């Protein structure tokens, strides 16, 4: 999606929040990747990601482009949400509840972008490989459990997992496989 396309989509969502779903689909992976790398566990990552998108939806009309891409604005909200959570023992809810104004986005290192790209590449895997990767890493299931659920042998699941990882690695390096 080009900058112009995204600006048009944001403007449309500001007029009609029903369009927010498209922005969510576009940016979910990047926001989640940013948050997951900075919090302790999956529950916290999910909680903060949810908080980020709810805040973004509530504050959508306050967003102005002014050189800060929409994705960077979302990451900035996520960074604030992480900071709020880290603030123990105090209740600085007033600042925490506000959608941040346009400004310098927080550090997004190349690993965040690569991780978001990796998540996207998982979606592009052949269906059986994608299922195994999601079951193993997102659902945190054992090879045995996955084999039972998919009605396959453990050996077949391990092989699908191996091939998926090999494909992902190659595609991360730019190979057309």
């Amino acid at each position: 999606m080009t900058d112009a396309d995204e600006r048009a989509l944001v403007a449309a969502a500001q007029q009609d929040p029903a369009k927010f779903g498209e922005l969510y689909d576009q940016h979910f992976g990047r926001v989640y990747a940013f948050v997951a790398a900075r919090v302790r566990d999956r529950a916290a990552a999910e909680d903060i990601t949810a908080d980020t998108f709810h805040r973004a939806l509530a504050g959508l009309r306050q967003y102005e482009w002014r050189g800060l891409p929409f994705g960077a604005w979302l990451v900035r909200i996520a960074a604030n949400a992480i900071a709020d959570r880290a603030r123990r023992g105090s209740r600085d809810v007033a600042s925490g509840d506000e959608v941040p104004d346009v400004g310098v986005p927080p550090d997004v290192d190349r690993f965040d972008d690569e991780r978001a790209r990796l998540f996207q590449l998982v979606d592009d895997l052949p269906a059986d490989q994608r299922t195994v990767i999601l079951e193993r890493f997102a659902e945190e299931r054992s090879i045995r459990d996955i084999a039972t659920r998919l009605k396959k042998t453990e050996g077949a699941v391990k092989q699908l997992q191996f091939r998926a990882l090999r494909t992902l690695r190659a595609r991360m390096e730019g190979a057309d496989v």
Partner: protein
Amino acid sequence: MSEHLLIDQLEQALERLLTAGEREHLEALNPALAALLDVARELRHLPRSAFRNRLKADLERSRTTMHVEDHTTTSRPAGFRAVTPYMIVQDAPALIDFVTRTFGGEERHRAIGSAGGLHAEVRIGNSMVMIGGGAPDLQWRGTSMPTALHVYVEDVDAAFRRALSAGATPIYKPMDHDYGERSGGVRDPGGNHWYIATATGPHHVPAGLHTVNICLHPVRGEAVIAFLERAFGARTLEKVASSEGAIQHAKVAIEDSVLEIGDAHGPFQPMPTMFYVFVADVDAAYERALAAGATTISAPADQPYGNRTAGVQDAFGNQWYVAAPVRRN
């Protein structure tokens, strides 16, 4: 090296990585495997599809609410969901101590409320609870209003032991249940029920629920659900009823909060509960609750701490305080 051998070595390394987070030192042995493990390390952060879909649905519902309510939006302090349980006890500091010791709760706020009692907000996992009432050094003399909560922890047996050593009495010992969790129940010294559980699935908190979930055991759950639908636009996510119509288990959502409801039986008797509910429009929410059969406790009014609030009591004895930040215009 044969592919078969590579696959087995990879799986052994992955198992260690996923169970203990241990960095595997295969690099020296085989760079190809090390490269795959690098990918696997990043995949540990892969989001759950169910979460991604549920959040999208939640946002869609929030968006719908925004539209219906004339583009006003629900505004709430960071970390809060729509509905927060509010436990009123005679010794609030003791309950805060219990929650801290048993569940690793983090006290976020403590103040003296308008009625002279203590008001505190405590974070447990990804959820907030409010605790209020008396304290040894306060004059407050009010009525306790204990609550039943379903709390997910990483290790139910350990949390159960911590609860007992923090002064709770057992309701039922931890046991495996066929509905996908191991759980045990305790009653804290203030009278609150805590159903402590660890889900048997991939995460100790099951998809769709939070660390802390409110439980209601009314005499007739169906009537409570009907009230919640009319007053707060609640949605029934799940309902299992007996052939006689008794609710065995139901999950009802108010925006992003889930209430679990089961008709009273055995030790699970009605415990009228106090709730703090963040809404988009306090006055409109108050009117809807009255129209749904609630009676007034307090009409909408701006509070000195920055919220506009109103209170109602439903026909089952539950008290609902609806709140939103005071509008500045």
